[in-house]
């Protein structure tokens, strides 16, 4: 297996899937063409759009696939069937058993390793991978490296459960009245029309507010709410929240695939970078206190490290492609 052989954001995929923007464009084309006259010049424009990029065709193939499913289903009966199936499920004894089971499992805490595995999450990124996700209400979620989350949307609330890693949430400016929450093992963050980061580290969750504000409710702190405004960050455990601190640096730079640091120690830099690096990345104690500033591209941690060797008195030692160590030059 090659390491960071390209800037691909989806390692393992033979052919990259169409990105969110392309799928949205396909949805818009579909919405427009279904009401366009047969001789509308827009059909020609649409054909040009299809020819522009293979991913456009790929996205459109999904539209056709969806239509295929709707054609297979009996249209006259479809809505009553879906409605009835949903209501039987709500009353289902099996489903109740499952919910009880999961609840007990979480309280028991005995199989944490399994529960937290990304395989069980609705959406996940591998190490070094970043991805964006458009939610049904139009909100946009960016997943940083090694992140796993579940989406729970229902009539009463919009909720994302962050199992591990880091996300940026930009809630949609919409007329949706349902409250928007990000939950973690430590507690609940309520979005107040906003853009913010949530990151899980050990048994702490860190929240950084970029626009507007959020409310933080640690799970075990009865009724204790901390309002966090734009430009501030705070950490919370399951029973308390640290006092808000002003945001320093550019914590959301990873959304653009960058790591931007100002006067960091090399030790901190390597620690941050190791989140994005497939394998073991470590440093020699002698270089830990070197200072580093700059903007770095995250798409190849190997190229980034080589670059580092050009600006600091360090050398990069690769025992294997997975095991890399930053050492003093001499």
């Amino acid at each position, binding site marked *: 297996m090659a390491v960071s052989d390209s800037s691909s954001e989806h390692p*393992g995929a033979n052919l990259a*899937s*169409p990105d*969110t923007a392309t*799928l*949205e464009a396909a949805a*818009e084309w579909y*919405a427009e063409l279904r*009401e366009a006259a047969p001789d509308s010049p827009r059909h020609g424009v649409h054909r040009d759009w299809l020819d522009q990029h293979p991913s456009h065709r*790929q*996205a459109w193939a*999904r*539209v056709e*696939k*969806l239509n*295929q*499913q*709707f054609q*297979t*289903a*009996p*249209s006259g*009966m*479809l*809505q*009553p*069937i*879906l409605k*009835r*199936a*949903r209501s*039987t*499920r709500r009353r*289902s004894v*099996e*489903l109740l*058993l*499952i919910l009880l089971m*999961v609840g007990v*499992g979480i309280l028991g805490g*005995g*199989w944490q*390793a*399994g*529960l*937290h*595995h*990304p*395989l*069980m999450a609705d959406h996940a990124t*591998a190490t070094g991978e970043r991805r964006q996700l*458009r*939610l*049904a*209400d*139009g909100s946009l979620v960016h997943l940083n490296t090694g992140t796993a989350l579940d989406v729970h*949307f229902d*009539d009463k609330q919009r909720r994302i459960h962050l199992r591990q890693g880091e996300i940026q949430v930009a809630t949609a400016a919409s*007329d*949706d009245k349902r409250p928007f929450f990000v939950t973690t093992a430590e507690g609940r963050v309520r979005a107040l029309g906003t853009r913010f980061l949530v990151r899980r580290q050990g048994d702490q969750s860190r929240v950084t507010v970029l626009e507007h504000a959020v409310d933080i409710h640690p799970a075990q702190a009865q009724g204790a709410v901390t309002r966090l405004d734009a430009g501030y960050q705070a950490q919370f455990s399951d029973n308390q929240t640290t006092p808000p601190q002003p945001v320093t640096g550019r914590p959301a730079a990873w959304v653009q695939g960058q790591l931007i640091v100002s006067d960091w120690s090399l030790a901190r830099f390597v620690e941050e970078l190791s989140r994005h690096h497939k394998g073991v990345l470590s440093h020699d104690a002698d270089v830990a206190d070197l200072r580093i500033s700059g903007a770095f591209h995250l798409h190849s941690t190997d190229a980034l490290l080589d670059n580092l060797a050009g600006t600091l008195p360090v050398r990069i030692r690769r025992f294997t492609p997975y095991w890399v160590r930053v050492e003093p030059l001499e």
Partner: protein
Amino acid sequence: MGAENPALHEQVHTLYSDHHRWLLGWLRTRVSCSHQAADLAQDTFVRLLGAHQTGNPLPSIREPRGFLTTIANRVLVDWIRRRSIEQAYLDALALQPEPCAVSPEERELIIEALTAIDRLLDTLGERPRQIFLMAQVDGLSYVEIGRRLGVSVTTVRKHFIRAMASCLQQLDD
């Protein structure tokens, strides 16, 4: 594809030989039919083998049975979805004024399509879901939907596009 990941196969094989029988017993307490329980147990292990597609090996599992039951729960939820659709479809067929002949193959395809649609619409709120179905299934214009629901055409269009995009995102290439 699967053969590329011998470590995962090895891991799943060990889980299978150590816990398959136990999982079967666990499933039997949840579904009444033992054939069904056997199928669900099989599906659970097949899903574990599918894990290589996410690029992640399985974790070192401290509580393999807890781990297995979590996966089995997902399989069960899917099964409940399918069964509820199947039942609702058969009920709807029975209500048809004219008896219509549907071959078993056709029936299978229809139920599969209905289940897939049901799953795709799961994440949508009540309103976008309704708008999407009115447009996509009933073939109503945005103006007509807006009139019936008492909302603006822009809102209808916006919800429709969002619902469509959400479905496209969930589909595979």
